[in-house]
């Protein structure tokens, strides 16, 4: 098992972050590091707009990066669980 980084774009709304963090605990996954920022510069986030066919506004979403040590299967499961959260736009592994 190696440490992986998961990148999550989620709505910048009260309660959205805690759903992601809570999910790690509920499902028994460990969070080793966590970083979150509101997205003010959208230039690097064009792919989100393209993938979902939406237009983002400044500060409307947050970018969350979590590192965790898991195997491939569990990582896939974590990503699927996070993507299921209603406030999450995209969750993927940072390669």
């Amino acid at each position, binding site marked *: 098992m190696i440490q992986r980084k998961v990148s999550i774009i989620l709505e910048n709304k009260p309660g959205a972050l805690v759903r992601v963090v809570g999910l790690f605990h509920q499902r028994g996954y460990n969070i080793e590091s966590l970083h979150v920022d509101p997205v003010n510069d959208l230039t690097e986030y064009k792919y989100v707009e393209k993938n979902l066919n939406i237009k983002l506004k400044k500060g409307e979403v947050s970018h969350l990066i979590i590192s965790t040590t898991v195997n491939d299967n569990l990582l896939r499961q974590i990503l699927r669980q996070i993507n299921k959260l209603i406030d999450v*736009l995209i969750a993927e592994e940072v390669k």
Partner: protein
Amino acid sequence: MKLAGNDILIQSLINEDVEYIFGYPGGAALHIYDAIFKQNKMEHILVRHEQGATHAADGYARATGKPGVVLVTSGPGATNAITGIATAFMDSIPMVVISGQVAKHLIGTDAFQETDMIGISRPIVKHSFTVESAENIPEIVKQAFYIATSGRPGPVVIDVPKDTTAPDKLFEFNYPNKVNIRSYSPPIDPEKNQIERAVEAIISSEKPVIYAGGGAINSNASSELIKLNEILDFPVTNTLMGLGVYPATDPRFLGMLGMHGTYQANMAMHNADLIIAIGARFDDRITNTPKLFAPNAKIIHFDVDHSSVSKIIEANIAVFGQVKNSLNEIIKLCELKKEMINTKKISSWKNQIEEWKKSHGLNHDMYLENSDDSTIMPQAVVQHVYNITKGKAFVTSDVGQHQMFAAQYYHFDEPRKWINSGGLGTMGFGLPSAMGVKLAFPNDEVVCITGEGSIQMCIQELSTCTQYNLPIKIININNEALGMVKQWQDMNYGGRHSESTYQSSLPNFIELVESYGHVGIKIEKNSDLKSQLERAFSLKDKLVFVDVYVDPDEHVYPMLVAPNGSLKDMWLDKETKT
């Protein structure tokens, strides 16, 4: 039109075609209750405990397919609803729970009856909302109903601070007719190449089994499943949650699988070379030890929820989409390729299954065999109920041995007729869920098969049944013990019955139900069983509570051997293991 927040909330529910709202009032919800009083489009059902409200709404949802709606006050009202929300969550039942909350300026101050409902319910809801202003209510209600009912359904909580429903502040009311949540788009139609791969696997299989669960019911895919199997002609098993999605009286039906599944269903799964999983999630009560599960089987998994696929058992072919739509696609392709199905090999596979059934299948005629003076067998009670109701009743259940006997011996030919808490296993579910079903289907027979342990967990709802005149039939399979616990203690703890009996403290159920205005019938003799059950069902407009004393030492079999067993490892009776 200008309305106050409390009226906006109620009008929004009316716009969602809500016919019943199950609830219990209290301080933080009083503005909302006043709005309920002023309208007559939606009926409020006053339960006796908020757990009852959630289970009743849940029963309504399971029977109708429409979302169940609950209204509770803040603090204890909200926390009392938690068990019912968790029950709905585990079984993917659409539900919208509106909880009152203290006014916004009091939040975080430990105000009277303040509790963090959003926080407490977070792990057991599909999503939740806090109302910030009355203006947002229509949008939130619209989204809540959409989220609760689409994709993989589930409960949604709307927490409503009291000030947002104040009657003295008016807002423009416009109910949205469309909903769009940019971060939420559950799959609907399957990918074509997955369907093609699934059909390839189907035509090359020699020992196939269809394994369908609650997801197929949620997707209303019963008729598609039947149609598919008219082409395939494969053996079918259902999970506890899936009973009824495939007709139990169809000769291809193997019965339920899993922990207390039939011998033939478990053996067929274990020895299969192809398992077609349809809206089923390989729960631990199904797989037994996952690494020993169906060692030679390829898995095709139809599901709407990505996270359910390859979670426990790796799927070789995953078909994401609404199960109904996916089945419609596969039906088309199977129709074209049906000549290629290996009917010859499959026919010897079916013979093998028939042999299994003959050797250790369930005895569905137990009721005929017991003599007048023998103790009453719980299985025979269910068999009589099945015969008397002609297999057409809605049957709700609680949790324990009686639940398993009901699942094994009542043959459900239609979906949404078997209503039970499969995932959470919530004792207390049976009676209130039956109320929800009876309200939705007043002209149908609604039976609650329960145990003397479970019924006491929500017995207060007998009073609700009086108020709303709900003539359900309660069959209390009374073994004077927490039978399922006792069975485990017999099997795994040397027969030490730690806290699983009541030391003669049970109430007189007959007097108890009579005090609520219902009819009680006590059955202690096998010779009375059939006639007294018939009498109970002949009292059409009465709630009848049948207290039937059964063999206290009976166990439920088959039972999977755990830990470290596979699906072929079963106890067949108290002495025999496979």
